[in-house]
């Protein structure tokens, strides 16, 4: 039974969802004032009301509380609502559906999101394990931080939710992209430790250079592990992006592994998209 929590949803939305999802789901409607534990639910549904800004804020908060866990956040818009999807998606929503959308389409989309994430294939773990080990090692040596790998899932979106990302392109025997995404507080903490600077002194320049350096070091150290294998790659220049919901241009036809790491009560992710040119993956 899939647990779905509806936050501040009207009776119209509640009954529409109950009809769409049938008996395989248990729906509970709560207020945004109530305490929400995102990981206890398979899906979170919000209704877009008259105040879009309040909804954007709610979505951002819930997304941050998910600590990068892949919990679908669905926004249901009212029939006459013409607010563009992009704002909801940028705030952290997984999907935006409208009450006047074809029910068949909504049903399939919701069911698609309810299917549990697949486990990585053995051949995928062959290139993910070096990234996991090196990320843990790099944070330990450069920032004296104990990092624990939590889980991996494969993303069905090109979006990254978080405050800041360092991205680096890979080319050579394999091509792809690696990106590290952090929330602001952890980014400042890591960069301060890496650069041996007090957190209060961290400014835009430090953040740009620090996050760029972090992804550079993680990718650079992992690159060595792939020498002589079909996964070997060269690195491009790191790019740093800010803001939640930015999109990454991964190579077409490649899968995007999202590796989640825990650091104390916080978390960050490494997105790895690596595709050998020789056909292996």
């Amino acid at each position, binding site marked *: 039974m899939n647990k779905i929590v509806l936050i501040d949803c009207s009776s119209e939305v509640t009954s529409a969802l109950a009809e769409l999802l049938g008996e395989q789901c248990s729906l509970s409607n709560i207020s945004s004032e109530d305490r929400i534990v995102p990981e206890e639910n398979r899906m979170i549904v919000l209704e877009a009301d008259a105040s879009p800004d309040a909804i954007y804020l709610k979505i951002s908060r819930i997304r941050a509380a998910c600590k990068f866990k892949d919990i679908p956040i669905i926004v249901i818009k009212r029939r006459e609502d013409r607010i563009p999807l992009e704002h909801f998606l940028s705030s952290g929503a997984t*999907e935006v559906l409208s009450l006047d*959308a*074809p029910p*068949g*389409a909504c*049903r*399939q*989309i919701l*069911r*698609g*999101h*309810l*299917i*549990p*994430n*697949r486990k990585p*294939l053995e051949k995928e773990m062959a290139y993910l394990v070096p990234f996991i080990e090196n990320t843990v090692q790099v944070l330990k040596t450069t920032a004296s931080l104990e990092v624990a790998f939590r889980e991996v*899932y*494969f*993303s*069905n*979106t090109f979006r990254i939710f978080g*405050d*800041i990302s360092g*991205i*680096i*392109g890979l*080319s050579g025997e394999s091509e792809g*992209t690696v990106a590290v995404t952090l929330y*602001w507080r952890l980014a*400042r903490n890591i960069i301060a430790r890496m*650069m041996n*600077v007090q957190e209060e*002194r961290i*400014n*835009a*320049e*430090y*953040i*740009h*250079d620090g996050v760029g350096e972090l992804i*550079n070091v993680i990718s650079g150290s992992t690159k060595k592990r792939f020498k002589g294998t079909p996964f070997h790659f060269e690195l*491009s*220049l*790191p*790019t*740093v*992006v*800010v*803001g*939640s919901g*930015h*999109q*990454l*241009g991964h190579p077409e*036809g*490649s*899968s995007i592994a999202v590796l989640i790491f825990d650091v104390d009560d916080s978390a960050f992710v490494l997105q790895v998209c690596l595709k050998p040119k020789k*056909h292996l993956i």
Partner: protein
Amino acid sequence: MSEKIILLINRDSAFLAHTAETLRLAGYRTHTAMDMRGALSVLSSERTGLIICDKTLQDVSGYDLLNFIKKDPLRDCIPFMFLVSAKEQGHALKAFEMGALDFLVYPLAPELLVERVDEVFETTRKSDPPVAHPPVAEPPVTEPPAPVHPHDNGSTDEATVVAVRRVDISRDGVIWLPGKVGKFRGSTLFVETALFGKPGVTLMMRFQLDDGIFVLNGHIKDIRYDDFQKPAWIEMVVREDEAWHRIHRYLQDNTGMPSAEPAQTPDDTFLLHPGALEKTAFRTGPMESVEVRDPSYDQRFYHSLIGKQLDNYRAITLIGSGSMGGVMQGWDVALEREVALKVISYELSSKEKFREMFIKEARVVSRLNHLNIAQIYYIGTSNDIFYYAMEFVDGKTLKELIDQESRLNVLKGLEYLITVCEALYYVHQNSIVHRDIKPANIMINTAGLIKVVDFGVAKTSDSKTKGEKSMIIGSPLYMSPEQIAGLTLDYRSDIYSLGATFYHALTGSPPFEADDYKDIMAQHIARPLPPMKEKNPRIPTPLAAIIEKMMAKDPFDRYKDCQTIANELKSLQTRILKRLRQSSEEKAG
């Protein structure tokens, strides 16, 4: 950077003297140093606007100095130019990674040196020291800021507001991030982007216009971020090259806004009501549905399945989609092999009639076992999602080949056509009609083997229920006249579509073209076929005659089966090869 003071660092005193003089004449004050200690001494006492440093100094390497400067919060914003010899340009990359703004290759012409230095001062004039805002939440920037420096370059021109245009922005041409152009002035563009750059950083900006993709090169002149967590507005100065002239025209005209959704192309597969053609423009809604379907729902549905597992099949990535469904690269966890997963569109899969028909036909097609046919392995439903797993073909479609090469070489085309004819003969022998033969459904795998794919709309020729209206299924560019008319189809319809496919492959253009699908279909029914040799004179007359016969309007005027076509083609192939052999022997002799 208010002071035009340059610090030159090099081991060679003659180089220092010569370069300092060149810069002095250009109006710059210079200080020189031969080692890191001397350089730091200058930096502690002079307000330096630019450092130009060699790769190797007397005491340390230039990288050490660069590293030191970039870690010094008081001096890390001083632009740093690296000097490298022509044969060591590769070292510049490392310097860039460490924060150098630019590099100079020596020997360097004096005028070029001055020009590059001018550029640096011009670029960074307004940003010294860079203002680092504390990361506190501020209202998001929703409008391009007013011209940040309206008097730059002595110009008093106001920036011109343009309708927001989406672009891609990249530092390295590998990773492209979205951005929006909001204004421009001269060769300066104001762009909103999440890319977190620094003044002086070089950028590429990619525009997709109707007549092609144009990439502008430039650098960040200024950057504004009121809130780190929101996209910044950057002022990008672009190089005034051919691409810029085109983009500038576009911005001035302010036309050609991109459409929100790509339109369906005539080589997509359509499902239509019989009789709908006369009444309305073509709709993509199948069967009794008359509402226009929003294709984005299908796309969103397919995307929701990536990273999930349907029964024994893991969905890895979306390969493509059409009006019938989406195709994903998948992995069979039980048999440990790659598969292609076709997920049927929500609209079709919700029609009970379609599902019944589909399952029945798929069962028959799954029995096909031929080297040149992509096999169906499994058909099923998981979480009420309707899909089938088929052989995964790693390679290119004939459509991609045509797009790449414009048209196929005659001998290659002949070989492909023979193979497809033999595969289709086998299909027809099993009483199956493919119904959607087109370049996108013929694949060539990495070993060069042809595979006919996507039997998703295939039909057994004896399966039609009496009195049941048949759906019009197919791709307008390659549909047979009887298919367009909604008549009962047999293998001769596939022969027509195969002829149209290879007409396209060998001439580089489809048999009939028009802006409206309705016109294309009308031409299939009534207009005589334009002779192939008019489009490609190199096509041998007998080959053109075979394809033209395959495309006869009346099914009875076409070949009686695909094997007969294959035999005629083989005989032609032998004659052509023999003639080529003789010709090469004569040349050699």
